[in-house]
Every structure is written in C-alpha cells, then in structure tokens.
C-alpha cells in the first residue's frame, strides 16, 4: 500500500487533521451562530441557538433509552439506545442547520414592498415583518385615516426610523389602483414585491341571506381587486430592469372544494388561485422577469374570519387558527427567499393538509386556545401581543413558524422509531436464540 509523503505516520497525521476539520465544521454547523443560519432573526447573544442542538441530542437519547427500558429490552446494552438516540439527534440538528443555510437566502439589499389592504390583520402583520427585516413598505387601506393610523402603529411597534409610507386605495377602482402604482414608483423608485392582500369575506352566512351589496363587494374586492392590482403591478415591474414579484393571497375554496356559508368568498379565491397558472405563461412574454406567486396564509385570526362566526366555527378556529403575526413570520422569510432566488412562481402554504391533520390529531391540547367554551375570545389584543405582556410568547411562536421544516422533522421521527424497532427486534431474537 502506498501512503504518500511521510509514509504511514504522515498519512495518519493528515487523516487526523482531516477529521478534526470535519468535526469543527460539524460543530460550527450545529450551532453557536444563529445569525448566519437565520439572517432574518438577528440575535445578540451568541449562545442563543445552542440549547436546540444540545436539547435535541439529550432528548433523543433519553426518549429512545426510556422507550427501550419500558419495553424491557436491551437491559444488558443500556448504552446502545442512548448512543443511537444521541447520534440521531445530532445528525438531525446538523442536517437541519445545513438545510436551513442552503435553503434560506436573503436579498442582497432591502426590498421595496407594496401590500394592499394592510390596515389591519394579516396585511399589517406582513408589513411589520418586512419592516423588521429592514425592507421598505408601502401600506394601503381604504381610508386615509386608516393609512395614517397603521403607519403610526407600525413605527411604534418596529422602530421610529423604519421606512414606511402609505396611500388610501380602493382596489376595485381602476383609477385608485393606478394612483397606488404611481405613488409607489414615485416614493420608492422601484417595487420588488407587490402583495395583493386586500380581501373581504362577506361574513359567515348562507348565500341566500347575504345581501347583493355584500356579494358585490366580495367579488369586487377579492377577484376584481386582485386582477386590477396584478395588472398594474406587472405593468410597473415590466418596466423595471430587475423585474419584480407579484403575490396573490389565496384562501378557503382555492383548492376547488365547496365552501358553504361563504360561497362567494370561496368562488373568488378559487379564481385567484387559478390566476397563477395563466399569468405564469403570460409573464414569459415579458422582457423582464416578473415572478407570479401565491401565498396561502391558512386560517388566520382576523376580522375577516371572525365576522359572523358561530360557536362550532370557533371550535375549529381553536384547533387550526394562528395569529397574523405568527403566519407573517412564516411567510415573509419565504417571500424574501423567493425574491433572492429569483423564482418564477411559487406557492407558499402555511396550513398544508398535513399540518391541518397534525393539528386535528392534537386537538385535545388545542381547545380554548383563542375562545373559551362560550365562544368568548380569550386572547389578548394585538397591542398586548406585539408590545405588551405577550411579547416573548409572540416571538417564540414566530421563530418556530419561521424555521419550520416538516420533511426533516418527519424523517427524524421516523428514524427514531426505526431505531427503536431494530433494537427491540434484535433483543427479542437474541433472547429466543
């Protein structure tokens, strides 16, 4: 065998160096610098992210050891489940970190963002999240007073020196939308991201009980508004050298399934979700790259959802709903990644079918999260959640939503279960033989 320069000792030395480097890299990828892995959540303390990998290693080791001990196997090999669990935990932590770093990308400069219907609810939460990430945001609401109010609130909630502007806009009025586009171009220079968020549900009620005015407003705000704004946004972006990205908001009905009690809303959202497919083709004809995307916020605890909600509705809300700031924390980093990666079209879903099933499975733990048995709201108002008592809870939920990686978590749980099975089977067969 040929060992290269220095013979066998030299080879061993190089091998050791190689391993040390790999080990250091692994340690580096596991923790210590959350800033690198999650650039959107800059944290000041260096040790902030450390509890996670360590906790994972320890808890995996403990879970597997406890499971094996309780099933009465592997008493003679007590170290095996501990070691297996620990290493699986470490592997998952390392993969998670590496995956996060590979997937996440922040735009090279702050983005210019337009969000329609951002006077409250999810639109406002998105605006706040973009501002926290250092982007410049233009908010809109139907009234000038609403715009002034939300701008003041955002400055207070994020920081007094963020760049936030606003204009009153009725999205179903073509002239008003043109004014919004020209104001955005004038004030921000260019628009990188345009989110058509303005929406109206027309309240939970039978279609026959809805007034024609409500039905008209649902159609005009949701579908016509999205079409007019998308048209204006693409026109604006096709004149920009770097193009831009348009995001439409889907909602219940987007999958084409029936939405009784909010039939008009569901039909408009089905139309909006359909739009992406057609516009993707049309965008290819443009000279500049304009991305056409859809955001799916799932069920969000906002005025739109709560209007006319019954007690049964509220029971479902307890299980499936999230606060707007939590959903925004999930969506915004992904929107920014889409922009940084220059994707042509993406469908970003917060509440996937799998997630919904998971939540239903955990339903007993999720009762009375937002509403008590009488259907009375038990959650704090937005101000308390953002600035007051629940700041830490909100931040924790936001961080968890932002770094969600379901596939990896599933793979981790599965490998832990397989490891347990192997140890059990091994122990059983060895006692038989």
């Amino acid at each position, binding site marked *: 065998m040929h060992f290269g320069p220095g013979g066998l000792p030299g080879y061993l030395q190089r091998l050791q160096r190689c391993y040390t480097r790999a080990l250091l890299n692994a340690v580096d990828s596991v923790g210590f610098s959350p800033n690198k892995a999650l650039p959107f959540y800059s944290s000041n303390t260096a040790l902030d992210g450390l509890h996670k990998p360590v906790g994972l290693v320890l808890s995996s080791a403990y879970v597997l050891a406890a499971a094996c001990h309780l099933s009465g196997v592997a008493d003679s090999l007590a170290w095996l489940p501990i070691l297996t669990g620990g290493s699986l935990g470490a592997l998952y932590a390392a993969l998670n970190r590496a995956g996060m770093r590979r997937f996440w990308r922040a735009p090279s400069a702050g983005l210019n963002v337009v969000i329609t219907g951002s006077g409250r609810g999810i639109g406002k939460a998105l605006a706040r999240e973009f501002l926290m990430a250092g982007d410049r945001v233009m908010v809109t609401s139907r009234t000038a007073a609403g715009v002034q109010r939300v701008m003041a609130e955002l400055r207070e909630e994020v920081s007094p020196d963020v760049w936030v502007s606003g204009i009153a806009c009725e999205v179903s009025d073509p002239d008003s939308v043109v004014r919004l586009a020209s104001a955005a171009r004038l004030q921000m220079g260019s628009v990188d991201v345009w989110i058509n968020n303005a929406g109206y549900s027309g309240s939970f009620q039978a279609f026959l009980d809805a007034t024609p005015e409500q039905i008209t407003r649902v159609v005009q705000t949701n579908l016509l508004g999205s079409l007019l704004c998308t*048209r204006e946004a693409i026109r604006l972006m096709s004149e920009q050298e770097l193009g831009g990205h348009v995001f439409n908001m889907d909602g219940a009905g987007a999958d084409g399934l029936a939405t009784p009690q909010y039939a008009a809303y569901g039909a408009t959202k089905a*139309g909006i979700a359909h739009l992406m497919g057609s516009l993707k083709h049309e965008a290819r004809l443009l000279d500049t790259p304009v991305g056409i995307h859809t955001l799916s916020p799932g069920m969000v605890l906002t005025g739109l959802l709560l209007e006319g909600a019954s007690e049964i509705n509220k029971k479902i809300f307890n299980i499936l709903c999230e606060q707007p700031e939590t959903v925004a924390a999930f969506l915004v980093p992904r929107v920014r990644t889409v922009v940084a990666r220059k994707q042509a079209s993406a469908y970003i879903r917060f509440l996937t079918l799998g997630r919904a099933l998971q939540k239903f499975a955990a339903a007993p733990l999720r009762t009375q999260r937002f509403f008590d048995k009488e259907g009375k709201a038990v959650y704090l108002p937005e101000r308390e959640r953002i600035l007051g008592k629940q700041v830490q809870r909100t931040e924790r939920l936001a961080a968890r939503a932002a770094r969600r990686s379901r596939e990896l978590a599933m793979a981790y749980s599965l490998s832990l279960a397989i490891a347990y099975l192997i140890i059990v089977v091994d122990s059983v067969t060895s006692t038989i033989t």
Partner: protein
Amino acid sequence: MPGFLGRRPLFHLGRPSQQAHAAHFDRRRRQRCGARSAAGAGASSKEGPFNVVVTGSSKGIGLALAREFVRAGDSVLICSRNASQVAAATEDLQRLAASSALAGPTQVIAGAPCNVANPAEVAALADFAHDRLGTVDIWINNAGSNAYKYSTLTELDPADLVNIVETNLLGVMLGCREAIRVMRTQATGGHIMNMDGAGADGGATPRFAAYGATKRGLAQLGKSLQAELKMQGINNVGIHNLSPGMVTTELLMSGTDTSTAKFFVNCLAESPETVAEYLVPRVRRVPAESRSLGGISSQYIRYLTKAKAYTQILMRLVAGQRKNRWVAEDQ
C-alpha cells in the same frame, strides 16, 4: 287536466305561415289578461314543457339554446344588456314558435333587457319571469364575456376586466340567488344551470386569464351552493353545470389569430346550433333524472368530453379531418 292537454300541439300542425299571426296574437292576448294564471295552471310536469330563463341570450350559444327550447315547446324568457337585440331575438323566437310543430297555446316567449351584474335588474328579471311564466323550471346562467379580445392581462383595459368579472362571476352569483329565491317556493322546484368554460377544470388559460379565473370560480361556486341548499333543507332546487366546449361564437373567434389557436378551433369547435341541439334535450331530462334521495343530485352536462376531444385531434393528425373547417389555416 286542461292545462296539461292545452300544451299538446293541437292546431299548430301544418300551415305555419298562417298560424304565425294567430299564435302571436294569442300570446299577446294571454299576456294582457294574465299569463300567470294561464301558465301557472299548466304547472310543469317533470317531462315538460318547461318554463326556461336563459341569460345573455340575444346571440351566440344563449340564443341557440333558447331556440332549441322553443322548438321543444318550452316557454322561454330571454335577456341581454342590449334592449334592441333582445327585441329582435324575441321576435325571431316568436316566429320560430309559430312555425314549430311542438308549440302549444300556453307557450310564452318573452324578452327583457337585463344587466346581470346589476342586483336590482336581476331581481326584476326573476320577478318578471315569475309573472310571465308562472313558474321557473330551468334557469340558465349563460351570460359570459371575454370582452371579445384575447390578450395578456397587462394589455387588457381595466374597464374590460371589470366587465369580465362582473358579468361572469358576479352576474352568475346574483342569477343563482334570484333563481333560488323564486324556485324554492315552487311546488315543482327548479334547476339552475351554470355555463362553465375554459379554466373551469383548473387548467391554465394564458391570454384570457381573467376569464379563466372567473370560470374556475363558477365551478367552485356550484359545489358550495349545492352544499348550502342541503344544509338549509332546500331539496327542490338543483345546481348543475353545462359545458358547451368550444363554440364558434364571437367570444371564441376573437381569439383565433395564431396558428395553434386555428388548429384547435378547427379541430374542436362546433357551431352554437350543433352544441345546443346536443345540450337542450339533456337539460330537459334533468328534472326527471336528477331526483335522488333527500334532494337533487348535481349533474355536469358536457358537450366536448375529453375522449371526444382527443379523438378529434387524433383524427385531424392522422387523417387530416376538419382542416380549415371554420377558419383557413396557413400551410
């Protein structure tokens, strides 16, 4: 059952030209002295004749459908935004009724101007239908628009967008709402047919994105409404879909300017008359066939099925059939 017998073609056989005037006069007279009681007395059976409302029916597929219904002996109320076109089409239908073998003395042909996107006008149309026809058995939400142009969303005029969304989606919603209001009180109930179109199945529709989005919304709307009717215990009203496929109307032909479009139009499109001839008998069977336990089962009546479409494309590619059928192709 005088009403029932009265609907038989007693004296319209033969001599159509002389009958035309008499029948017209007969209709006018009945309308003046209260068609409601006359038609109401002959409350429709499950086999017809039916009282039918077709929206957007002064031309295109709507008019073709109306003509087919009239030929089958049904009473028909047509409408469109343009009053003069409605008047002309109504006259045309009345002439047809007079010459039709199946036309009975209680057959009513009427027309009214109506913008389906205007709630007050749609409500007035439903009331008018109720007054003139007595009952409304079938209501077809046919009015649809693509602003007669095919272009990318950015090139489309905002006013056209407003028109497309309001006619296709809002118009159908208001139509369904008013039709259900009238039908739920009728002993014989009623059936609502919504016209689908490209995009209804979720497929992309570049160059008519807004149209496709509205049709996709319609397909979803039907499901929601059917579910709501069930929840509310309204089991005498059915919501169904009609799919005309590609029809050589202004709406389609305005977009036939590329060679691909021409290829598919020649391959797949049919004239409004052919499509109506296929659809109307099937629509007329819906009242008898869609009864199911505890309500009405939804039906989806398609002219151009996938199998038919693929066969025609194949035959075109293999045997060159249907080339230059509607528009001249280059080559």
